[in-house]
């Protein structure tokens, strides 16, 4: 039987968004896949054609992490942050910054064992409810392309 691979999006509090996904592998393996650079560079790549030329992870409280993605067109995107909490195979808490143009978040990743499967809950905490709501309402929830017509309708309904 295969695991349900749907990503579910929830809002645990006014400033948080959580995504939950189940993987068909034991917890220790999944934890390693999320926290060891040699594994991370193989899958945390986003869209087809992206690569990760830089992946540094100092997995301990106070340790820094730094990842750089290179898109198919050669342009790059960087993220940095610091680990606040590391509990092997069950939980990490880290800050995440995309640079001065973006609101930085505090991300908690929990690894929950379910027999030979593992459920991963990634919770992103935004600086304010406004930041979170805008992120959610503009497309994270249904992922549909937000046209200007829909945006206008949304703005009208939210007014």
């Amino acid at each position: 039987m295969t695991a349900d691979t749907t990503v579910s999006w929830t809002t645990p509090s006014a400033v948080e968004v959580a995504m939950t996904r189940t993987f068909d592998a034991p917890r220790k393996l999944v934890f390693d896949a999320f926290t060891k650079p040699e594994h991370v560079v193989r899958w945390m790549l986003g869209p087809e054609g992206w690569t990760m030329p830089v992946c540094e992870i100092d997995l301990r409280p106070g340790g820094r992490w730094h990842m750089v993605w290179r898109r198919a067109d050669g342009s790059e995107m960087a993220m940095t942050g610091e680990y606040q909490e590391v509990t092997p195979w069950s939980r990490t808490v880290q800050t995440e910054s995309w640079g001065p143009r973006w609101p930085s978040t505090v991300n908690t990743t929990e690894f929950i064992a379910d027999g030979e499967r593992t459920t991963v809950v990634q919770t992103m905490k935004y600086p304010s409810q406004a930041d979170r709501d805008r992120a959610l309402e503009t497309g994270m929830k249904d992922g549909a392309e937000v046209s200007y017509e829909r945006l206008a309708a949304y703005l009208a309904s939210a007014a």
Partner: protein
Amino acid sequence: MADDPLSITFAALADPTRRAILARLAEGAATVKELSEPFAMSGPAVSKHLRVLERAGLITRGRDAQWRPCTLDATPLREVTEWADGFRRFWDDSYRRLDAYLERMKEQEDDR
């Protein structure tokens, strides 16, 4: 308060009156007087909201000193939606790749 462009956009969008003003402007340009009417607000109160929207780059205002019609500029909104859409797609694609990669990790464990 953070002063990066995205935070400024979010802060401007956080107020329901300002969202209503943007919804009205999505239908076409309007003057301060036209914008004041549906909200039962004074001209100065509406002008205050317009200044916030203008600073966030969400509206532009005409040069005509008397009327200064307001026009919606959706560029910052596009940045917000691209950020949110891109984020969701990033994890969908990555997680699918991880499914396959975990299978390989399991095989390597078994080989040991």
